[in-house]
């Protein structure tokens, strides 16, 4: 098998294993990344919610916030893991699509493969 095929398989494996990125932090009691706290966490940390932050924070409603479905407020880690994998698959698919379209557009002009 070509090594690039193996790399694509590796990518698929990473997408399937992605819930580890959810399960391990939960298992070891690790919270948000530094500087990526929710408004509530900020209030606990510094005692107030910065006014500019409260104004800007709700600016964008992502369709799959934090790689989960909107309806999954306090779902179990099991169901969150499923939506994490779905998010990984959707994200990987869209990233590949955009990168290919962009790459084709860039490579298309005057870079033939004839060599």
């Amino acid at each position, binding site marked *: 098998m070509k*090594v*690039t095929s*193996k790399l*694509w398989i590796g*990518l698929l494996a*990473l*997408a399937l294993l*992605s819930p580890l*990125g*959810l399960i*391990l*932090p939960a298992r*070891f*009691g*690790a*919270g*948000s*990344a*530094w*500087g*990526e706290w929710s408004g509530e966490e*900020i209030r606990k940390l*510094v005692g*107030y919610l*910065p*006014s*500019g*932050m409260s104004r*800007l*924070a*709700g*600016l*964008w409603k*992502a369709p*799959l*916030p*934090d*790689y989960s479905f909107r309806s999954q407020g306090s779902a179990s880690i099991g169901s969150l893991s499923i939506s*994490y994998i779905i*998010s*990984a698959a*959707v*994200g*990987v698919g*869209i*990233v590949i699509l*955009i*990168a*290919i379209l*962009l*790459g*084709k557009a*860039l*490579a*298309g*002009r*005057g*870079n*033939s493969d004839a*060599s």
Partner: protein
Amino acid sequence: MHIPDGYLGPQTYGAAYLAVAPFWALASRRLNKTLRSRQVPLVALGAAFSFVIMMFNVPIPGGTTGHAVGAVLVAVLLGPWAACIAVSVALIVQALLFGDGGITCIGANCLNMAVIMPFVGYGVYRLVSARSDATSRRRWIGAALGGYVGLNAAALTTAVMFGIQPVLAHDAAGHALYAPYPLKIAVPAMALEHLLVFGIVEAVLTGLVVAYLQRTDVSLLYRAVSETKQRSAAL
């Protein structure tokens, strides 16, 4: 390291958009000249890899989480300009679709993870592996060191962006309007966790993949996009 909306004031996120724009333009021009059609799937693979590896949150027990980015690995395989485009695509999709990183901060996040990280990391890789054979040990060591330094450089610039916010904007009561921690807290906090934990993860990941490619298909490794064209042209 994905700065959310509300953590940076307009001066900072505006300036970051202005700063990253020329890199996007230059990267497009560069790839326009050097990228070959058959390399496009590799760029897509690199972008997708970076996207998914950032989902692997690594915990510091009882503390924070962080993750590898993969930008230096992509830079070693495809060159820093292709890495800039690939990682930017991943970051933009993360922001728009998954709310990972704010939309006001796409410029800032791309500047840190899609410009500073791949270019600094690639520079370290070239420095360490200079003129060594493609199968040389210096290649994977250079890649690992590049990953380590690149991620830490990105963490530092991210921390500086956070840390200047309380000085740039605060109200009469002295409360910050955006990210509340000053440089003297933000920089050590971000630096320490990346120096001690997440940088190591990035280094191991980058070094392992490069070492694997050295054993299996070294042709994937020894020329970045920008050099491939020149090489093929010379043949």
